[in-house]
């Protein structure tokens, strides 16, 4: 299929096949997913803009180099999340970067607040919620963010986090328990 015939509404699978021949088709895939992955990195790892951009660039380059290895038993989105998460973890390990405090916009924190209240069946202040979320250990924050903020299903989370479904369910529940413990009634 010539590059000019590749249209934005084409499926991910056809774009992947075309991107192996032409990087311009890959650009369409990047346009489709980079904002979603940017928000994911920001919400989960609380990184600054430059670090997120570096990680995203590295992730997409890795995706581009390994387009031939794309396993279509799961979606391109899941695969992109998988690779991006791995790149973020590698970057955090190499640079020993600690999450920064509050680099999200108010709108994003409102979103997190709503998700936290929905998960814990309680009402909290924005400030208390931000502290509680940041205090969550990464192994609980990841599944919590993917489930409540990224709206991923358990099946998608299994492939992104490479953990069995039962383990992920336990981690999400544990995250909710920890959030409830952090968020005292006095913050209402």
């Amino acid at each position, binding site marked *: 299929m010539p590059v000019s015939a590749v249209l934005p509404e084409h499926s991910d699978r056809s774009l992947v096949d075309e991107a192996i021949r032409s*990087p311009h088709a*890959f*650009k369409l895939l*990047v346009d489709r997913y980079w904002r979603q992955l940017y928000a994911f990195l920001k919400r989960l790892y609380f990184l600054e803009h430059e670090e997120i*951009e570096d990680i995203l*660039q590295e992730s997409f380059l890795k995706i581009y*180099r390994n387009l*031939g290895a794309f396993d279509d038993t799961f979606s391109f989105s899941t695969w992109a999340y998988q690779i991006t998460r791995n790149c973020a973890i590698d970057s955090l390990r190499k640079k020993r970067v600690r999450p920064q405090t509050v680099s999200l916009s108010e709108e994003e924190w409102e979103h997190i607040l709503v998700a936290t209240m929905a998960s814990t069946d309680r009402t909290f202040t924005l400030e208390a919620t931000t502290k509680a979320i940041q205090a969550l250990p990464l192994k609980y924050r990841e599944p919590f963010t993917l489930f409540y903020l990224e709206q991923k299903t358990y099946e998608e989370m299994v492939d992104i986090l*490479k953990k069995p479904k039962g383990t992920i369910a336990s981690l999400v529940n544990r995250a909710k328990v920890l959030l409830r413990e952090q968020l005292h009634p006095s913050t209402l």
Partner: protein
Amino acid sequence: MNDDFSQRLLDKIEHEQIHPIPRSAILFRKIAIWVLLLLCLGCSAFLGVLVVLAFFHIDLEFLRVSSLGPMLRLLLAYIPVVWLVLFLLFFCIELLLVRRQTHAYRYPTSVIIGMMMLGALFGGLGFYATHLPERIESSLPGHLPPHIRPWFQPDRPLPRPEDGVLFGKVQTVQTESFSLRDEPGHLWQVQFDSKKIDVRQLPHPDQDVIVEGHIEQREVFRADAIRPYRGQPGGPPPPRP
């Protein structure tokens, strides 16, 4: 973040001449990993069944260890923990490869380990039941170039009682001796010290055994070790190195 992120990425790809890895290379990598996985499975199956056989003192001749070099034979015969360590090593490599190459991460680790153990056990029992190692050992020299065949000792003389090895079929068993008819048909009286020989090693009538020791007098052999012999039907045991 600027909306030109994708354009900058595209510029980088074109400027640095970055290309996707060819599908053939990816396929080759996958095949190599699968071959390694199957080899590890075979090795862990083989070693696993050895550990089981050694634990239950069943037929250690399965490996035909006496046909291997003296050092290796010493290791395998007297240091069984080596088998266990090698088995665990191959098992761990197999576990890593299974998690990497397949979607096994979707299942609990205990389930994956259980399935792999079962696979190794059945594979190993299959090797044992089909006499696969012996078949390979007997057919291999025939496929080798002539200058390599002597390394596999096909023309070495068979062990003789004078060399300290006696093998044959047990006829009768007494308290500290038994009678044995060897391959040429001679009847030997094999004597042993019941304090030194493990009671589990004692043969029973009609069993093929291999005895290590020395000749005390004519047709009397003093045994230091007795092992079941499970060679090819009608065939001699492998020669000593």
